[in-house]
Each structure stands twice: as C-alpha cells, then as structure tokens.
C-alpha cells in the first residue's frame, strides 16, 4: 500500500517525457554532457579559469572543473555556457 502511494506521487511529479518537472524549474545548476565533445552548463555564476586544458565554472556553492584538450567556450550568457572540445574528466569542487 505504501509502495503504491510512493509510485503515484512519482508519477504525478514526472511528465510524459520522463523527467521531473520540479527539477526543470528549480534554481539548481543543471549540467548536460553530450558524448565527450560538449557540455551545457545552466545556472553558472561565472568562469573561474579558462584555458585549453581546463575550464572551471562557478556554480554558486560548488564549482565544476572540466579537463580535456582544445576546450573552448562556444557560447556564454550570464547564467549558462556551452563548453566544446574533447572532455576527459568532470570534477566537482566543494
């Protein structure tokens, strides 16, 4: 009975695309990585470090460090950015 209740609550939160609507509208940073060639970071607070091998992005309480080679900022706006290049690792720094 308890399981059924939990599942129905989850169904209410998820839409037909299978993601949580609550998460979509939250102010938390959102990171999408496509293969290892680009990453979309939404909710960034600024670029902390920018070089061909390392891009460090401030996400408020934590920062995100992308390592790789030939990294570039394809597009940048006050709250989001797109990183292109060959991404080798993703690291969260508290």
């Amino acid at each position, binding site marked *: 009975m308890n399981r059924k209740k939990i599942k129905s609550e989850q169904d209410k939160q998820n839409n037909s695309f299978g993601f949580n609507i609550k998460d979509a509208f939250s102010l938390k940073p959102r990171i999408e990585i496509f293969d290892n060639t680009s990453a979309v970071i939404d909710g960034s607070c*600024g670029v902390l470090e920018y070089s061909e091998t390392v891009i460090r992005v401030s996400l408020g309480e934590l920062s995100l460090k992308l390592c790789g080679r030939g*990294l570039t900022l394809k597009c*940048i706006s*006050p709250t989001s950015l797109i990183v292109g290049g060959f991404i080798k690792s993703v690291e969260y720094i508290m």
Partner: protein
Amino acid sequence: MFLNLIRWFRGFVVFEIMGRFPERFINLSTRQGHFVLFSRPRKDNFTAALLLCDYRTIRPIARKSGVRLKVRERHGLPFLLGKYKARCGLLIGLLLFLIITVFMQSFVWTIEFSGLTTISQSTLKEALAEEGVFVGAFKPTLDLSAVQRKIMKNIDEVGWMSVNIIGTKAEVEVKEKELKPHILEANVPCNIKAGMDGLILSMNTKYGKAVVSSGSAVIKGSLLVSAVVENPSGDVSIVHADAKVMAQTQRTKSFVLERKGVFDKPTDEASRYRLRAFWLEFPITATSVKQSYTSRFETKSVFLNNTEMPISVTVEHCSRFSPNIYSLSQSEAQGIFAVEDYLYRLFSLSECESINAQRHYAETDSFYSMDVLYECEEDIAVYENLVVN
C-alpha cells in the same frame, strides 16, 4: 547561417585579450550583456570576438579587469562601408543605377508586331503613336483597351488586335480582316464580250449560250457568250452568263531612250549622325548642311539578345544633286530595255498565262528604241450587263 549574416551586417571585431584576469573580463562583459563570441584560449592570451557596437563600450570593463585589448581582425558591413567612405561616388553610382533601373522599367522600350500581312508596320506604328503607344511612352498612363478600340475603328483592315505590355516590350498582335470574296451576282443578267482582239483558243461556258467557238477570231467588243438561252421546250430565259474564254492576243509596246540627256547626279555628299534614346534625339556629329541638300535617312537600332533596344543611330546622308550630261552606249541601252521589259511583264501582263515576246531594236541619232510584240494567252471575257428596255 542566419546569425552569421546578422553578425556580418552589424559588424564584429576579433580581438586579443592580454592580462592577468581574462576570465573576469569575460564574466563582466557577459553580465553587462556584451556576449563574447568565438573565444579561444592561447598559450599567453585569449582571442575573442564582439559585435562592433559592444566593442565600443567595453573599454571600462577591460580597465576594471586589468586586461588590454588589441584588435586583430575586423569583419562586416560597417567596415566595408568605412573602407569605401572616401569613395562615396561608388555608392551614389550604385544608388543611381538602382533608381534608374527601376524608373526605366516604367517605359515602353520596344514595340513588336505579329500577324501583319497586308497592313504595313509603319502604318500601324503611326496609328499607335497617335494613341500614345510609342517607344518611350510612360506605361502607367496607357489605356490599352482604348487604344485597341480606336485602332480597330480607324483602320478598316484590322479585324482584331491586342496590345500587351510585357515588361518593357509592347507586343502588338493583329488579326487582319478577311477580304470579302467576289460573289457572282447571279440575278443580274449579263453577256460576255471580248475584252480585246484575239484568236479563241478554248471556251469553258458555265452559264449562257456560246456564240463563238474555238478557233474563231474576235475583235474587241464582240459577243462571246449570250445571256439569252433557249430551252429545249422553246422557252427563252435570260441568265447571268459565266465563262472562261482563253484567247491568243497580241500587244505591242515601245520603249524609247535618249542617247544623250541630263540627269541629276548626287555630288558633295555628307553624313550626319544622330543618336536616339527613347524619345530623346540629339546629334553626334556637327556637320553643317545647307538647306538645298536632299537627305536620305538610315536608322540602325541596337539589338541585345535579338531584342530591339530603344537606342538607335540615325545616319542622314545629305547630298546635293547637280545636272550631269550622260551618253548611253548601245549595250547600256539594251540593259535598260531588258529591265523595263521585265517590269512591264511583271506589272502589266501579270494575268497572262504564257507570253512570247519578239523584240526589235532600232536607233537614230538621238534615240534608242525597242518595239516588243507580246503574244499572250489570256482570258478575254468581259461581263456586260444586259439592259432590257
């Protein structure tokens, strides 16, 4: 693609960021709404691009973030225009070209005719010009349906016509009236008489009673076919006689030429050129010609892709005629006689089926002469209405 086009129109600058905190510069400029494009880190510095309008206001941010900016490349329309700022004539020329091109499309450049067989093109051209359709006419003022109506009313030979303006070309399509066929007035009784002296070769009588037969010699005015026909029952009726009467006839023609004479020979010739563009006509050469000169005009139009342009050059051949004494030799006289003979056959004996000519040349001290006897085969039937008192 579309974004690149917008960037090109607005203009953008590729610049180098040198200093300690290029990241800060990127953050600050992004927060202020100046979006850095194509940023690329290098070993010692960065390269980035900004729209021209953003780059002009970004100096304080650079100063604040402790970086130096150095322009490497400039792209886009504002720089292209700036490059040609000193040559504003080019831009004016381009604008004038566009204006003139659009403006000139409002005029009729050429007139093309189709369907003309008996009506001369110049007659129709004159009629169109009277109604306002000519090379250089302003298209919006033309009332084509009124032009069509008026021309169809004024020129009897025009059965139907349409004037279509396609682009700058006026296409005039004409359908001429069919000529009314000769209808035999069968109700009017008439005889057939001989139109000239001759020897009857054959007779093809459709209506009426043949009075003469093949082999008969007739003189002009002789009755050939009578309109009065007697039926086998003995009744008499009057009909409209119809027959084709072929006869051998003879005609004589004398051609005479003076041995010596005076003719006007063109001397002191000069040419004047005039350029005509649309309705404007102005001289190209400054040749002066006296009023006593006689002029002959020759117009050469400019063609482009088999389309006549509204530009033409008119050459005026001016010459003064002065009397000149000539003396004809016998061979020259015979040549002229041959031409005159040919023209006489062509225009005066056009209805004869076969012609046999016997020429006799003669010459005196002052004249050359040629007497020709033409033996022709022709229809000598002449219809003469029968008057019954």
